[in-house]
């Protein structure tokens, strides 16, 4: 696995490098000193794994994840002492290491990653940004909570100006991306533009009812309903008949 170490302190990066020397399967592709630097390095190196310091000059580690285009690399957070961040990690069962890093904790965190068997995201195709697979994850933060949401869990995406509201599990946080930008990244085999405001995940469709003037009412698992106009209803029928 190719790893990128992101930390503003040189000694902290060195320390992690030294600890990772014991893990032959982790190749350290590079280091970054802040969020801006990290964005450039991620784009250039396409690491599989990020060791991400939470507190850095300027923007913090979470905001890097918000800025990165999915598919996201795997992430292990590092922090010295930040009650807020640790709470967020524990709430979301994210991997994190407390500095100074305990080598055993590092082993356990890496073991967990290997055990998950996630296919490491490859570099994008020639066209630039790749489409998201159903297994890819989207990072979203709202207030003091954050999630890595698997694309397959997204039931519904709703446009709210420059933002998109994601509906998954019991949550519906906002993502700072337009619905159109999101739609371009989603696999049209699985996601369908129901109307100007909404994109639905076909895997979550629970039932379909006729609606006014040739339209359709699509019921999603979990109780939400989405209206389709006649023209989109036609597209929808075509899609489902395939």
């Amino acid at each position, binding site marked *: 696995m190719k790893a990128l170490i992101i930390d*503003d*302190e*040189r*000694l*902290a990066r*060195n*320390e992690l490098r*030294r600890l990772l020397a014991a893990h032959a399967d982790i190749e350290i592709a590079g280091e970054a*000193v*802040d969020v801006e630097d990290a964005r450039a390095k991620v784009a250039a190196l396409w690491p599989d794994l990020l060791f991400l310091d*939470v*507190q*850095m*000059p*300027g*923007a*913090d580690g979470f*905001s890097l994840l918000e800025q990165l285009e999915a598919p996201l690399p795997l992430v292990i957070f590092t922090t*010295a*002492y*930040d009650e*807020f961040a640790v709470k967020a990690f524990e709430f979301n069962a994210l991997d994190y290491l*407390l*500095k*100074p*890093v305990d080598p055993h904790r590092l082993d356990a965190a890496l073991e967990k990653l290997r055990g998950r068997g996630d296919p490491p995201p490859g570099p994008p195709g020639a066209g630039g940004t790749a489409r998201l697979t159903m297994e890819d994850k989207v990072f979203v933060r709202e207030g003091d909570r954050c999630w890595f949401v698997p694309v397959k869990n997204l039931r519904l995406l709703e446009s709210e100006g420059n933002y998109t509201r994601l509906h998954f599990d019991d949550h519906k946080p906002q993502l700072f991306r337009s619905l159109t930008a999101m739609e371009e990244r989603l696999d049209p085999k699985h996601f369908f533009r129901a109307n100007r405001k909404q994109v639905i995940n076909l895997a979550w469709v629970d039932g379909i009812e006729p609606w006014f003037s040739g339209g359709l009412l699509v019921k999603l698992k979990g109780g939400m309903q989405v209206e389709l106009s006649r023209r989109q209803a036609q597209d929808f029928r075509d899609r489902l008949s395939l």
Partner: protein
Amino acid sequence: MTAPASLASGRPDILAVSAAGVVGSRVNMDHASITQARLQRAKERLYVLCQTGGWTFFLTLQIVFFALFRNEHIAGKTTQLELYLSLGRVAAEGWLITHFARIWLTRWGWKDLGWKPLIPRVILMAIAMSAVWTAVGYGIDLGVLRMGYANKNPLWLMMTASFVNGGIMLLGWLCLYFFYHLFERLNRLQVEQLSLAASVKEAELRALKWQLNPHFLFNSLNSLRALIDEDAPRARESVTRLANMLRYSLQSGQQETVPFEEELRLAEDYLALEQVRHENRLRVRWEIAPEVRPLGVPPMILQTLVENAVKYGISPRREGGEIAISARCEGETLAIRVTNPGDLSAPASAAAARAGSSTGVGLRNAAERLKLLFGPAATLTLRPQPAGHVTAAVSIPLNPVPGP
């Protein structure tokens, strides 16, 4: 403000009371109100005991007096039984009058009055009560019991004598009653004052209690781990510095003022450790006049300024910057200045904002502490100068530390 003097004196007492206060405040409300009710019942019992005991004593005294000095002039033709009945009636009447007086006094709130308004009221009250006592007494004797007036002195003279006698008795009763309450109030006030002093003290101690910032501590330890391989002598030196800081942190809050020299050493240790972490992002310039070293300053005052400078001037900046620390005597004051790159109007960095510490919580605490110790003579200001920088300036009256 005379805080320093009061801080220095009586500390053990106040701390003892403060400890008791803490224990007391943990007792839950139910328990407290039960205690209150029990106290009230005990007071009531004491009153009944004193009231009944007092009047019984009065009655006994009267009976003994009349038995020993049986006087035809006074007793007249009344029978022995009638005489004793009359004495018992007088005592019972006194008991009742004072008992009701107590109820009214409570209702009128006289218990909370001071000396001056109380004296005329007590005198008038005694006169009124005595008038009632006399009138009702003679009314019962002559009107209800129809004992017949058989004294050789005229009735008006006897009534006046009774009235004056009774007035003095009741005045005595009222005085005893209010003496007791004034004394009790004084006691209560003293306890309140002590617990107030204790809570003020506690607040001060909390302010003085400085702790190593855990974020700094763990980051430093992390850097140290890396430094052990890279630069062993520097790692050793850093361990010593960290140990110094930990020791200082454990001891802080025990003195009112410390020599500036100690503060300097702490700030040097702190900045050296921050330099290990931030490397060339943090540069430090010292301008310390030699004569300020022995001067007394509140503990942690320089540390607060320096930590603030690193937090807002260095940490959020990728390029870092220089922190300038100067201390010198200016007239009758010690002037400490800490300058860091920055902008007062700029929003605090996201990380700092998330940590829940907006600019200057530490500085505000420091300013309050200065005020407590030195009154208006000490100041702490934050100014956006020179351009692109922020300077925190502390000015305190020259205050040599008393020799050991």
